[in-house]
């Protein structure tokens, strides 16, 4: 994308725009704002393309992490809209479209996430999608911070175990 080749730029945007906009919509839940967030994500990706390290993951997850950060910025500004983790959980649990070529393992992750107890899944969604600190997660979940922390930790450990990732 950083090549400066217009055709390559267009192809890049076309390839990932549905993913980027979909994630932005999942987090901000307003089409106009999601569109602005998605645009901002591509612009940031363009400007920081040199920071992308292929050894650390595929370009889609890098781009989606940028999108998530831009969306979190937007959500923080809109304090009028309370965060409802149920929105995202429903989307994550739904029988959605297949993840597409090259992302088959994402379906495995979706199954692992769906298999988690809800009390572990919600803190993960709140942290990973909305970027909330533990104190806010605990407040939303109406549990002590230590409990929220334990649930998140156990959930992530189970997710990894569900994916067959070992410690070795």
């Amino acid at each position, binding site marked *: 994308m*950083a090549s*400066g080749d*217009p055709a390559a*730029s*267009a192809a890049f*945007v*076309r390839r990932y*725009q*549905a*993913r980027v*906009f*979909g*994630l932005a*919509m*999942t987090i901000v839940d307003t089409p106009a704002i999601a*569109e602005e967030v*998605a*645009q*901002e994500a*591509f*612009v940031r990706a*363009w*400007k*920081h393309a040199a920071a992308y390290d292929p050894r*650390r*993951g595929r370009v*889609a*997850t890098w781009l*989606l*992490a940028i999108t*998530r950060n*831009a969306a979190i*910025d*937007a959500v923080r*500004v809109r304090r009028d809209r309370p965060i409802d983790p149920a929105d995202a959980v429903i*989307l994550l649990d*739904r029988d*959605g*479209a297949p*993840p*597409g070529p090259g992302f088959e*393992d*994402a379906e495995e*992750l*979706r199954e692992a996430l769906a298999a988690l107890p809800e009390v572990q899944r919600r803190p*993960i969604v709140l*942290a*990973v*999608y909305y*970027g909330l*600190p*533990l104190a806010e*997660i605990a407040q939303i979940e109406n549990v002590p911070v230590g409990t929220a*922390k334990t649930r*998140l*930790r156990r959930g*992530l450990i189970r*997710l*990894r175990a569900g994916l067959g*990732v070992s410690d070795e």
Partner: protein
Amino acid sequence: MSDAPGCAHAREQLPELAAGVATGEERGTALRHVAGCPDCRRELDAYARTVDDLLLLAPEIEPPAGFESTVLARIAPDADGPTPRPAPRRRPGAAWRRWSLRVASLGAAAALAAGTVWWQTAPDRHLAQGYKRTLNVAHGSYLTAGALTVSSSTWGTGYGQRAGTVFGYQGDPSWLLITVEYAPVAGRYGVIVVTDDGAEHRVGHIRVGADGGTYGTVVKVPIQTISSVELTRSDAPTLTAHLKY
């Protein structure tokens, strides 16, 4: 699994670290350990990949018509892209607009006051008006901003991560406003202004907590001569913002 000292404690923190919810102290302690422990670093990478991959689960939704051309137009000035639109001055992005409007909520009085200025928030509907008022009343000529990022990897992960924003206002007086949303280590950071001639000017300290921090100060050097602003702490990565585009 490694039995290196500190591994057990650090590994307990890795899921929170990867999810970005570890508190400042925990994050600092764990990162210091991970920086010197390849086993734990691999473990953290594995958690981080799992967390990143979770973002792939959001549904794909086609954006509205015109999205692609708008994006290409926005990146074209930097990329010599395909759009025939003449390249304007750097178009402020959403984040810039948002933050610059927030800055405006400081109000003209704060901008003109001698000494330190502090961050305030205000309802969005008042912000645009406040922005104009600030520039008009303060006879300001220049408002700029730069992303604050983790600029050294000495202490482990986080390099390149967005940490906040630095705003510079050229007026009478001129000031800097620093907002930190994320720092690998919480605590007190020295604020250093680096000017074009390479000179370093210490302009105070910012306290960064688990929820970030904000610091504002009047500066004597012209804003246009500032090349970067650094937040430094002996046991943490330096956070740097470049104000020149």
